[in-house]
């Protein structure tokens, strides 16, 4: 299930700015441990942001996104008090969804 994300969403006029931090190791599969063995890749592959039924962002990520990823984006037509939902799906089939009320 992973640890909770930290999502901030702020409306200015009809534009909502969303900033997201996700807790994830984003292991590349290229690093070795102390025993010299490769640490298997484990990273978020897809991210989807929704506002009600509307998809406001979808992304595909590779292992080159930094650990504990941060991203921000902006969409039009969001209202204060409504929710933005973010979901991620990783390479081990794990997923996590969190939401925040637009401030």
């Amino acid at each position: 299930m992973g640890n909770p994300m930290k999502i901030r969403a702020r409306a200015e006029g009809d534009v909502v700015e969303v900033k997201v931090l996700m807790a994830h190791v984003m292991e590349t599969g290229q690093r070795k441990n102390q025993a010299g063995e490769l640490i298997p890749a484990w990273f978020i592959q897809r991210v989807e942001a929704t506002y009600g039924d509307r998809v406001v962002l979808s992304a595909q990520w590779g292992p080159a996104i930094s650990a504990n990823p941060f991203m921000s984006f902006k969409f039009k037509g969001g209202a204060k008090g409504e929710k933005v939902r973010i979901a991620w799906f990783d390479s081990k089939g794990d997923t996590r969804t969190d939401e925040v009320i637009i401030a």
Partner: protein
Amino acid sequence: MREVRRLRSVVIRWIVACACVLFGVAWAAEDRRALDEIQKYRDMLKDGNPADLMELKGEGLWTTPRGPKQATLEACDLGLGPGVLEGAYAQLPRWFDDAGRVLDTESRLIHCMTTLQGMTTEEAIQGWTRPGSDMEALVTFVATKSRGLPIRPSQSHPREAEMSAIGEALFFRRAGPLDFSCATCHSLDARRIRLQELPNFLDPASARESMIQWPAYRVSQSAVWTLERRLIDCIRQMRAPDADYGSDVIVALQMYLQRQASGGVLEAPGIKR
């Protein structure tokens, strides 16, 4: 003939000198620009500091019943009364009557986890070297409650002054196979290792600039490092014998450094290389 040769040598020397000066100026400008760009790098990371994830986790740990006694940490006294978090971090380390010791944030949390929750010390600090450890999360949460407040380590008990004096002595004491002290690197202005500027803890402005950032998310470690962890690793890098987690050596060094940085307004959690 000799005249010509001397003239030539003077001219060459003059050209070489000019070139050196020009190169030096260009190099200094390049150096300045590099530091400006690194500042830009740091500024861009400030919004969206992954340490915020640890703060969230820490808050959860603080309010969740844990340990054999299934108690939360909400009654933990960090020096300003049971459950008072605002400003507590800024005033640590301090003397605690109930422990009979001067304690820093980590050692006080260990005290609360053992007394309130019934954990052993080993359970309390379990996995402290791993990214995302409970201790890392708790210290981040506690420190965040002092953000915007000045560093003001307690000065109400004689043992606090004593610990600060011990910390100062340790700061200057050369030890280990490299005959190294903290002061070797941290008592001079504008020193750096590669592109990493080193704080001068004898200069209050430099000490504040450094200390207001701890605990800090280390991008090289993908983890928040507490001040205690930073100091333990400094000692390791000096090739001195390992310091124990929560030990008096670390508390004393912190007491001295926090005093040097008194008045610095906390920006914790910071973000560092």
